[in-house]
């Protein structure tokens, strides 16, 4: 048993391929039998992945979900930023340049609106829970943008570590909810064409959330959503500790 575990650990990436393959097989079967194909296999597989990530996190107390369990370590490489971005870029092969040109203005505006709306909503929720100083509101508002913008803003404005941790949690929740929720809300918001996908990517901004959510909705939309989402974190890091923080200080004193 130890011998087998040793082999699996040393060849982590290969075992990750097997594990994901098995998850997709089970999900595909569940999709066909339980939902008659209504809920796509990939959507079920992503939810299954999140559940396993939760179990792994509870089991080990680590930060990388299932990958914190030694024999599943390869999942961290397979699902890490390098290979994820590499595969996202590859999906652009064969996208329609005309569609991108059509959505240019809408995509840009969606980015700006997406960042601002997340800031405001996050700050309002923070205030509702009693975090009324500008530093905490700016940090939690930034966390509602993405879990990278939260700590960047929090560190810059000198928020407490408890508030920074909350901002990361808010961003993580958003990423998870976008992954699971996108296929459900897609029909309600007309998310069935490249332009809407670019707007969605810009408004949501969480690359992991958008990448997972669109994959579970319609994989052909992935490159369009990913293209705008990738600008979001940078824009958030730019506006969070500056314009947004100063606006809050102006409005609420400090």
């Amino acid at each position, binding site marked *: 048993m130890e011998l087998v575990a040793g082999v699996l650990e040393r060849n982590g990436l290969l075992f990750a391929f097997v594990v994901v393959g098995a998850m997709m097989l089970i999900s595909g079967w569940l999709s066909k039998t339980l939902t008659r194909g209504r809920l796509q296999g990939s959507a079920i*597989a992503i939810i299954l992945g*999140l559940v396993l990530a939760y179990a792994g996190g509870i089991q080990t107390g680590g930060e990388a979900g299932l990958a914190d369990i030694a024999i599943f370590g390869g999942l961290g490489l397979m*699902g890490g930023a390098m290979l994820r971005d590499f595969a996202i870029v590859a999906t652009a092969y064969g996208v329609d340049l005309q569609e991108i040109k059509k959505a240019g203005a809408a995509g840009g505006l969606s980015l700006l609106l997406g960042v601002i709306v997340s800031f405001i909503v996050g700050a309002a929720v923070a205030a509702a829970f009693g975090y009324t100083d500008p530093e905490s509101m700016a940090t939690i508002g930034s966390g509602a943008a993405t879990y990278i913008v939260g700590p960047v803003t929090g560190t810059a404005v000198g928020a407490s570590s408890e508030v920074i941790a909350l901002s990361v949690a808010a961003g993580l929740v958003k990423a998870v909810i976008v992954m699971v929720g996108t296929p459900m809300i897609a029909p309600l918001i*007309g998310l*069935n064409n490249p332009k809407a996908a670019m707007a969605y990517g810009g408004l949501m901004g969480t690359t992991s959330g958008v990448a997972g959510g669109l994959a579970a909705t319609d994989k052909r939309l992935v490159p369009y959503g990913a293209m705008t989402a*990738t600008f979001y*974190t940078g824009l958030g890091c730019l506006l969070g500790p500056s314009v947004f923080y100063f606006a809050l200080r102006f409005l609420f004193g400090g």
Partner: protein
Amino acid sequence: MVLYGVAALALCMLVGMIIGDLIGVLVGVDANVGGVGFAMIMLVLVSAWLRKKGLFPKPSEQGVLFWSALYIPIVIAMAATQNVAEAIDGGPMAILAGVSALVAGAALVPVISRIGEKSEPLPPMTEKEKQEV
């Protein structure tokens, strides 16, 4: 040669990431600004140009398409390595902030979709395409 396609893809991504980091430094933020987006646009332009010149044969194309097809499995691995436990640990405030940001953003999708030229819905996927991930 399959590797030519993989190499071209990797080169596009690396150049895109360098541009993204450079923009980050220029505007003074500690983040990569749009690296993946630049890489994607570069891949679209470069591959179209190479194909027109007949320099991007089928095997090279396979190298790109393989990684494109691995995208969904990679996203599933990514889902399995998210810090879900901490997200749930954040309590009601973190959950409410995350959910409200999603709802507010999603509500704006139909508004923004109206700007500019109309984009046609993609044709429905066939049963085969749906299961082929």
